[in-house]
Structure formats: structure tokens, C-alpha cells
């Protein structure tokens, strides 16, 4: 299948890759860029495990064609840590037990990241809204919501 050159930024790094038109953003990130933190949890749009940020806003990478992200800033869970230190959200999910098997966690954290960037002190209702499309099969949502609340409080401190 014919490929085209895709130029975009992934976690701050400009990239240029030859991709097929039908390549999904999730497969581009995992298979071409090698960033396997983003997870595929369902057969399309049902679970949120694949959530990344595109230009700072949450995006389901399993429903997005890679080439549709041309010229955009894509961010994945691998881009959250800075200088070897976890982000406030990552740290809070760790400390508040917001993660058990961890499969949903990258998507949860990226959806939460999209929220706190625009709403640094979200209400619980806003957190529930923002994470409404993210499904967790083990932790239970209470701990996840508490993790986002703790991270927002830590960022404000």
C-alpha cells in the first residue's frame, strides 16, 4: 500500500515517517515509534486505554488515522516524566493506588492530563466527566478519582 510522509511531533521530538494511509495513530505510536505505553483495550472507541493528547487535548488513538495527526503535537504516557521524575499525576496514581494491573492507567493519566492542563483545580464532577470514557477493570473508580484530585492538589501546592 502506498505510503506518505508524516511529519509531526511526538513527546516534543519532531519526526518524519513513511506511513500507510490506513495506519492508526495507536499502531504508529506503538509499532513505528516504539512507544508501547499507549494500550489497545477494545475494538474501537469503547475503553479509553489508547488515550493520548493531540495538541494538548485527549484523543482516542485507536480511532484516529496516524496521517490525520500531521503537523500536530502528540503526547503519550512516555512524555509525562521529566528528568526521570514522574509527573504529579503518575506519582499520585502510584501513591493513591489508582492503578492495579496498570493496563488502563496510561489512558487514564493522559485523559486526566488533558483535563488538569485546562482546569488545574477540577471538581470531582469535572474529573468524572473527563474520565467518563476510560474503563478500568480492576482498581475501581474511587481510587482513580482520588489520584487525580491528589495530583491537582499537589500541583497547586
Amino acid at each position, binding site marked *: *500500500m*502506498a505510503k506518505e510522509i508524516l511529519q509531526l511531533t511526538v513527546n516534543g521530538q519532531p519526526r518524519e515517517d513513511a506511513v*500507510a*494511509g*490506513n*495506519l*492508526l495513530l495507536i499502531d504508529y505510536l506503538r509499532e513505528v515509534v516504539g512507544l508501547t505505553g499507549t494500550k489497545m483495550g477494545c*475494538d*474501537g*472507541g469503547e475503553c*479509553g486505554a489508547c*488515550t493520548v493528547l493531540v495538541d494538548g*487535548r*485527549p*484523543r*482516542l488513538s*485507536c*480511532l*484516529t*488515522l496516524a*496521517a*490525520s495527526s500531521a503537523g500536530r503535537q502528540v503526547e503519550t504516557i512516555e512524555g509525562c516524566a521529566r528528568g526521570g521524575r514522574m509527573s504529579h499525576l503518575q506519582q499520585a496514581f502510584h501513591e493513591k493506588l489508582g492503578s492495579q494491573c496498570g493496563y488502563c492507567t496510561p489512558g487514564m493519566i493522559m*485523559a486526566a492530563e*488533558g483535563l488538569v492542563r485546562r482546569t488545574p483545580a477540577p471538581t470531582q464532577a469535572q474529573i*468524572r*466527566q*473527563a474520565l*467518563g*470514557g*476510560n474503563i478500568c477493570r480492576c482498581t475501581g473508580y474511587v481510587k482513580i478519582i482520588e489520584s487525580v484530585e491528589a495530583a491537582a492538589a499537589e500541583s497547586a501546592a
Partner: protein
Amino acid sequence: MEYMPEFTVARPSSLAELVAARRANPGAHLLAGGTDLVANIRRGIVAPEHLIELTHVAELQGIAETSSGGLRIGAGVTLAALIEDERVEATFPVVVEAAHAVAAASHREVATLGGNLCLDTRCVYYNQSEWWRAANDYCLKHRGKICHVAPKGDHCFAAFSGDLAPALMVLGATVEIASADGKTRRCALPDIYTDDGLAHLRLTADDCLLAIDLTPPEPGLRTGYAKARVRGAIDFPLAGVAVALRRCGADLAELRVALTGTNSCPLLIEGTRDLVGAPLDADTLERLVGLLPKQIQPMSSTFTPPGYRRKVIANLTRTLTSRMFDEAA
């Protein structure tokens, strides 16, 4: 099934380029936010050879005030943008309410108004993986010979499940449509639909929804949207009801009710005009609910049985209409 079939993608940036792309790629499917189409491609129920991505078509973007004081909302406007627009919230709050009820926040970032209105019809026997459908000998809507919902008939009962259509219908919205040659035409929103699960859109394969036009609401109009779904955070409507009404003193002066999730197209309920000119008492409410059974046709196309959905629709209609009437006082 292949995980993703092979297709080409054109990315026009204007209506003229879109027209040219359609001419060059006959049978192409339009791709907006992809939250319905890409999921369907991944499940193998749509296998396009060509896609035309609408994201960059300038004529589909933006929300603009019209000379009549209403709004023209581009079909490419995302539901997140619609929800965030203060003019929409101030003038047509029911549109924001219905948009909020669509899927979850991350879907709404890319999901568009046009995609919502042109959403494919849905059924438990259709929106399944390839192996699931194959094990069931497929269905009338895709590759199969019978409708598992009504095996003796030759009709498909997949349900229309978009939340925005009823909200726009009670506001009397009109649609702008661009045809293959780029010429535009207008019609009332209900006119783009027909009650057939196989082909619920009256648009031709070359038509593209350009925008929705809303005229300013009549002074005193109260509107609301209510929806029943399995999971409150994310699911398609089992049934959705939009109501717009006006009150004159103790009497109902105007009433429009539209439904989604009950038939293969959204429905503007007929006969509501006969109820105006009197107070909305228990008797009038029962007459309103009495209009529904002959017009709706919920079938076993969802996980909940049709009888349950009939009850839910009646209750949602009754409670929402009565609440709007009280709030209009």
C-alpha cells in the same frame, strides 16, 4: 477480517477540493471525527476503498450568527466546540444538553455535528466483531440474509441513536447540503431521514452536510433533552426525548416533541399541535403519551427489550414535558 482494510485518504481544504476529490474517488466515504466510521471499519462492517477527510474543509467549520439573529453551525464543528460556545449555550441550550449526552468527553473532542446527524443505524446483531457476526451468519444489514430482530420480514430495524437530531428537530433546524457538483440546497432536518435501518439517510452518496441553520427561538420557548442509557457516562441512547414548548398563562401555547433510539430515524412526533390551547393537565399528558405507540417502533435491537423501551419513552416524555411546562410558568 483484515485489521484495517486498505484505503486511500484525500484531505481537501475547501468545498471545491472536496467536490474534486469526490469526482476522483467515486463511492468514497466521508470521514469526520471518525468516532463512528473508524470503529465500524475496524469491525469490518464498512470497508471503504476511499475516504475523504472533512476536518480541513473550511466551509464546514465555524459557528456564525445569521442575519435573522440565529446561528449557522458548520457540520464539521466538534461537539466539544459546540458545548463550549457561549452563543449556543445562551440561545439553544438544548443543543448543548444533547451534545453533552453524546459518548464521553474524549469522543466529543473530535466527534462532529455532521457525523452525529449522519450516524449509521445500530443494532446488537450489527455492531459486533467479524467473528461474532460470522458465527451468527451475519444479518440483513451486512452480508446476511435475515434480520435477527424480525426474522420473518425483509426490513432492517437497526435504530438511529444520535442524540443531537431530536434536539435540533424541536428547534425547527434546517440543513444545508452540498451535492456532487458543489451546489447547495436546504431542507428541514426531518427530511434527510427515512425509517429504514438499511438506508436511513435520504442523502445521495455524493451529498455532504454543510451546516445546520437555527432561527432564533420564539420568546418564552422552553427546551430540554432527556435520555436513558445503560451506563450514564458513555452509552448510546436506549431512548432520547427532546421537548420544546411555550406557555401562555395557564395554557400550553406550543409543543414539539422529537425522539431518538426508537426507530431507524429520529422522529418529530405528529399530533402535538392538537394539544395546545389548554393547560397541561394529567389528561393532556396522557393524550401526548398516547400519540407515541403508533409512531414509535422500538425492536430488540438493543440489550433491553422493546417493552422496556416503550415504557421508558413514555415516562421520559411525560416527565420532561411536564417539567418544561412548570419551568415556563
